[in-house]
């Protein structure tokens, strides 16, 4: 069986926060305790959407030490393939669902003298758990959080009332911007910077910090990609001896799973490397979207990350 261990849960609370974001709370069906976790961890939520099984990763945002319940916040993506829409429209309090054990690909570096958090939009969620963890451990942190507008500022009130000295909010529609150069310049030695948000923000922070001479090991980022729809294509799975069709609105990984072939995965967002698959033969073009493989590996035509990447062309044969 692929992926992390599973937990059977029941949806115990659903709280709409604003026009786009809704919080979901899960408790174990058996009434027991959930595993503790480390701030930055995510869980993969299984959604039974008619004939389709959707598996989407969401950052755990509840207190890592609270074993009674987990919480996630889901931003509705009207252009996406339907996972967030399913959560918003179909999931009700009392529903039974399956989630994975926590997996952390965005862990705190506990050597840091200070943790500098930069969040954009829904990218706030992993930091909410990390902040709760650091508050318990007496860690030194500071948050800079950019939101589109006051009305879309999820958890802004909670953060500014509990942590007024550590929290700094920026609203795009009021032309407020993080003064990144000055912010980085003023940090004490031993500070680690963490960024979670849209791709443009992640690139901006990484490039600026590297340009200012920050060590690569002190710059942490997490970006989960949602698989994008695309043209249907055909794939031959050499080991399982199957020819499968990948539909417009499913990922290559989902199509492999639909055909009953067990393929490894963890994050399903192009970040963890677990689903890396060897290409045996191809005629056509890859649409690589992960940030696991290096550029030269993308160009080589020898590997593909089926969770987010696609293919256009005549023949694709995979070692699966």
């Amino acid at each position, binding site marked *: 069986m692929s992926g992390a*261990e599973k937990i059977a849960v029941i949806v115990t609370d659903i709280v709409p926060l604003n026009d786009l974001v809704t919080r979901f709370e899960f408790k174990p069906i058996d009434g027991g305790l959930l*595993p503790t*976790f480390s701030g930055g961890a995510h869980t993969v939520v299984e959604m039974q959407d008619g004939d389709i099984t959707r598996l989407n990763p969401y950052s755990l945002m509840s207190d890592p030490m609270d074993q009674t319940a987990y919480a996630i916040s889901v931003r509705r993506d009207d252009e996406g393939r339907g996972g967030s829409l399913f959560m918003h429209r179909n999931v009700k309090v009392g529903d039974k669902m399956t989630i994975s*054990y926590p997996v952390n690909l965005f*862990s705190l570096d*506990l050597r840091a003298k200070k943790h500098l958090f930069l969040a954009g939009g829904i990218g706030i969620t992993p930091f909410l758990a990390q902040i709760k963890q650091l508050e318990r451990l007496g860690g030194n942190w500071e948050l800079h959080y950019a939101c589109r507008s006051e009305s879309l500022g999820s958890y802004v009130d909670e953060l500014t009332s509990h942590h007024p000295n550590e929290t700094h909010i920026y609203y795009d529609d009021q032309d407020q911007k993080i003064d990144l150069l000055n912010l980085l310049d003023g940090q004490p030695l031993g500070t680690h910077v963490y960024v979670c948000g849209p791709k443009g923000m992640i690139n901006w922070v990484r490039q600026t910090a590297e340009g200012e001479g920050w060590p690569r*090991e002190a710059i942490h980022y997490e970006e989960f990609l949602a698989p994008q729809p695309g043209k249907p294509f055909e794939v031959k799975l050499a080991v399982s001896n199957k020819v499968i069709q990948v539909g417009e609105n499913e990922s290559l990984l989902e199509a492999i799973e639909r055909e009953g072939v067990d393929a490894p995965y963890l994050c399903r967002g192009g970040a963890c490397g677990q689903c890396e698959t060897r290409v045996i033969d191809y005629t056509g073009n890859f649409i690589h979207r992960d940030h696991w493989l290096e550029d030269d590996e993308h160009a080589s035509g020898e590997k593909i990350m089926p969770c987010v990447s696609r293919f256009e062309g005549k023949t694709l044969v995979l070692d699966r």
Partner: protein
Amino acid sequence: MTIQFNDETFRDDYSFYNSERAIKRFPFPFHEDSYMYSVNMEQHRGGPMDSVYEKRFDVDEHYVAEMKDRAMVLADDPLRCQSLPHMTLAGWDLLELIMVSKSEDYPDLFELHRDGNKWRWVNKPLGIDDTFTFLDDTTLPYGPMEYITRQAQGDFCVLDQRDDNLWMDAGMVTTQADWSLDFDIGMNFFEWHAPVPLAHEKGIFVRALKFLLNIQQGAPARRLNWTMTVNPLLDTSPENYHKWGIQKTTLTPENIGTKQHLRVELQTFFRLPRSNALVFPIRCYLCSFQDLMTAPKWGRRLHRVIRDLPVELATYKGFIDNRPMMLDYLSQFDDGLPTSPGIWPDLDTEPSLQK
């Protein structure tokens, strides 16, 4: 199940011994008649009843004596236990993992009573009954990792995970096969494995690291490793090589059956929840050649493995000089009959020695 703890030593008079039960459950490491490195990992979720795989942390007849030996090693050399400052949280994770596992798996020997962060820990074999506050270092006589690993058999490496690598940033290491925590502390996975021959060329460590980085909460893994030790010594450290290295020259055809031990490490790997660190317990089992030969399958197989082992490995494992004497002894127990696959002794089905 009640365990009768042996009154025995791993030094001086070497009164260590294995009972008949301990011999039967010895983790013989060779699943076929030859040996080469592999990433021989499997899930660590129980195993055959009374095997060393059954519980998360195996407790056996050597428990009390091993903990006494550890205390003596630490009294002589406190640097056998080290934890860099950022690893304290991982130490608490480990304390919780061991206390919960042992109290659930051996309720007659260990008890854990939790009321919020107020914890009471009862260790009957060692006569300990302590109350402390979870995550408050000041309420324990040692740091959390040292406290619990003074009460758990085997060495413990607590590895920080960052920059797509593992870092030897904490550990309790007193029963090791000739490596030093004090030397390796702070090193990454490739640095501390640098002395191992052949495996780098085979790409073993790149694949092993990839596997370990992906070990997740709730899904621990395990493997076996092995070497050879003359006399039942737990502490075969580089720090004390001047004491034990010379003992390898005391082997004679007359004493080899009782003096020469196969040393097997049951290595397990658990993801720690709060710290996201990885703990790597290395549990050492010793068995004399003479006791191993009571299982005909093991006698036949050990002879073939030692005979055919590449010179580099016999040198690295430290028994190249004694190999001819070992083979003289072991060949008496190899009649050329085939052996069944797998590590279990198969006492009911393997034919007795045909000589």
